[in-house]
């Protein structure tokens, strides 16, 4: 039934796959066009006019978060590397506690559109805004890279395109389509797609999970036995298949775990979602919704990953177009034939589309609001100019992401996203935490921490096996992998915290105590951000 004998061909009929897939994508596009008719002000474009309820926003957060990385990447990672892939699920989920307890409500109360609004609140506006916008752009770039690579692999699988040149072309076309979509949709359109997509993705994963369990007599243990039988080794059930081979690999595992859990609360596009609700209480509610949806989904990934390992097998998955990222679509085909394959792929594609839109808007907002409007135009941009700059930024970012996506093609996208998490946790998290909770924090501390964290994370990645030295690297020919860690978190995150502290302690000046009072009071009480309560 499964036509996987020739590794480079698509399962099923490419035209049927694409027809089902295309119909679904068309429907979501229509919804966005309809939802985006009244994007007038910057508040509409970036923050959807703060019109969403906690439940809606929570689903949208889940939609944002359950990106291609979560669905395609984690299922693939579990199917191929066994239990080690499950760490992504756990790390991505527990990370939400940091977001919920430490930052969500406080940020909602002090910010307006972007992360830089909060970070520059009581520090010197210009340098901190420029730094925050820079880190936002870099984090969004890494995240986009993963999504583009995922979209390319997915469409290549559906069309049965095996060669690199064809896949690069696919990434370019898909990327161009996504840019168009963001230009039209804005935040409101994107939020609606996220909501619809979150529901479809979780429903689709639930159906597949029940199906996989049903085949195995509703026994998870039997499923695991079958996965062992297909893989030919019981190691697939135990930790250490990928990260247990050496001491360095074990350290790499810890580094990944740290980046995953600390990254979420520092992801600019997740933080921006807290601004689309009217009150701190709604922000809290949205995070709770998101945690439930995301948590349930990640339990499904465990079943789906081992389901793919049992029914298809790691070697066949790796040989398919898209590599490990094709495990979920292949499992869908194995279960429900071309119809389920088309549906699941379309949902995964809508996922990528919406996440790309959310990321690009965040990056564009950061550039237009923080650099153009606040720094270049000193807070007084011409009417409409800010949104115009934002739209132009979208095009530039899109093109850069397409080029990066072609370079990253074939890498596991959960792994690529983990790099974005490491960069976010290094460059942003210390400054967010210090400026909310530490009175003595200064501009110098913020700049040292942000640039230091960003630079150390980027340099460590550039010198790691991700970029060069192994056959799966981005530049397989070169060999400058001095740093053996493939995730920089364990070095760059503590370093950024240290630099923030050191920079502040060595700073002779102190920041305005009045601003510190205002920020602390506003962050905890919501004065100025909540609607006035008239009695």
């Amino acid at each position, binding site marked *: 039934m499964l036509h996987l004998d020739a590794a480079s061909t698509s399962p099923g009929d490419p035209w049927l796959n694409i027809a089902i897939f295309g119909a679904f994508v068309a429907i979501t596009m229509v919804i966005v066009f309809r939802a985006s008719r009244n994007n007038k002000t910057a508040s509409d474009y970036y923050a959807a006019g703060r019109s969403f309820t906690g439940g809606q926003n929570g689903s949208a957060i889940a939609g944002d978060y359950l990106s291609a990385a979560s669905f395609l990447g984690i299922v693939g990672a579990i199917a191929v590397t066994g239990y080690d892939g499950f760490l992504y699920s756990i790390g991505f989920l527990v990370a939400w506690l940091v977001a919920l307890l430490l930052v969500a409500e406080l940020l909602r109360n002090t*910010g307006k559109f972007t992360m830089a609004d909060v970070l520059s609140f009581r520090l010197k506006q210009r340098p901190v805004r420029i730094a925050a916008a820079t880190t936002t752009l870099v984090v969004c770039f890494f995240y986009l890279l993963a999504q583009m690579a995922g979209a390319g692999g997915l469409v290549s699988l559906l069309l049965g395109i095996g060669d690199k040149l064809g896949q690069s072309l696919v990434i370019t076309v898909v990327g161009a389509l996504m840019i168009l979509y963001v230009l039209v949709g804005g935040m409101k359109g994107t939020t609606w797609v996220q909501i619809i997509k979150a529901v479809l993705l979780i429903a689709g994963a639930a159906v597949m999970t029940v199906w996989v369990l049903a085949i195995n007599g509703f026994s998870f*243990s039997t499923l695991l036995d079958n996965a062992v039988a297909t893989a030919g080794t019981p190691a697939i059930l135990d930790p250490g298949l990928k990260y247990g081979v050496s001491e360095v690999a074990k350290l790499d595992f810890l580094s990944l775990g740290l980046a995953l859990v600390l990254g979420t609360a520092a992801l600019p596009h997740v933080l921006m979602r807290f601004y689309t609700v009217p009150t701190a209480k709604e922000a809290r509610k949205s995070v709770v919704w998101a*945690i439930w949806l995301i948590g349930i989904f990640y339990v499904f990934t465990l079943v789906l990953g081992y389901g793919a390992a049992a029914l298809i097998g790691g070697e066949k998955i790796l040989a398919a177009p898209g590599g490990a990222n094709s495990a979920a679509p292949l499992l869908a085909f194995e279960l429900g034939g071309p119809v389920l394959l088309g549906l699941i792929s379309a949902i995964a594609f809508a996922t990528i589309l919406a996440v790309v839109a959310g990321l690009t808007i965040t990056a564009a907002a950061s550039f237009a609001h923080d650099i153009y409007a606040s720094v270049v135009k000193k807070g007084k941009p011409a009417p409409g100019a800010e949104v115009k700059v934002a739209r132009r930024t979208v095009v530039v970012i899109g093109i850069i992401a397409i080029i990066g996506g072609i370079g990253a093609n074939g890498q596991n996208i959960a792994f690529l996203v983990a790099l974005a998490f490491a960069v976010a946790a290094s460059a942003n998290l210390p400054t967010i935490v210090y400026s909310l909770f530490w009175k003595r924090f200064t501009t110098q501390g913020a700049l040292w921490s942000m640039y230091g964290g960003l630079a150390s994370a980027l340099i460590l990645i550039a010198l790691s096996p991700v970029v060069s030295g192994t056959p799966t690297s981005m530049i397989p020919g070169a060999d400058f992998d001095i740093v053996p860690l493939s995730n920089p978190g364990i070095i760059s995150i503590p370093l950024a915290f240290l630099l923030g502290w050191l920079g502040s302690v060595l700073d002779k000046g102190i920041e305005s105590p009045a601003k510190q009072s205002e920020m602390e*009071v506003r962050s905890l009480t919501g*004065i100025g951000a909540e609607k006035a309560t008239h009695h």
Partner: protein
Amino acid sequence: MGNDALSAETGTIPDVDFRAVQVSPEFQKLRRTHRSFVFPVLGACLAWYIVYVLLAGYAHDFMSTPVFGSINVAMLLGLAQVVTTFAVTMWYVHFANKHFDPLAEQIRDEVESGVFGTDASASASGVGVTEGGVR
């Protein structure tokens, strides 16, 4: 641009003395309640997570011990992380609704009714009396 009533523009809200609010006993209580919940709970959750990651990284034999059929300790500990995340989320929401929100609302109401105005009138000096009691 945007809705001014809801915007948290980076400019100062002119007629509120935030310093006075910050040192008021109500706010100090809110700040204390918030920190004494958030820091220890989050610290414990992160510690539990790090222990899990370390076990998965370094204690392979222990994690590979089968418990039910082929389900091993690693699977159960992973699912336990999910369960604790859900539990802490519900706990936090319950706690925040009960302890943070009423205090925050009380302070917002006082600020709106002009208790903490910057013009050094009777209301501001009234705060000054309580100020000495804090810190």
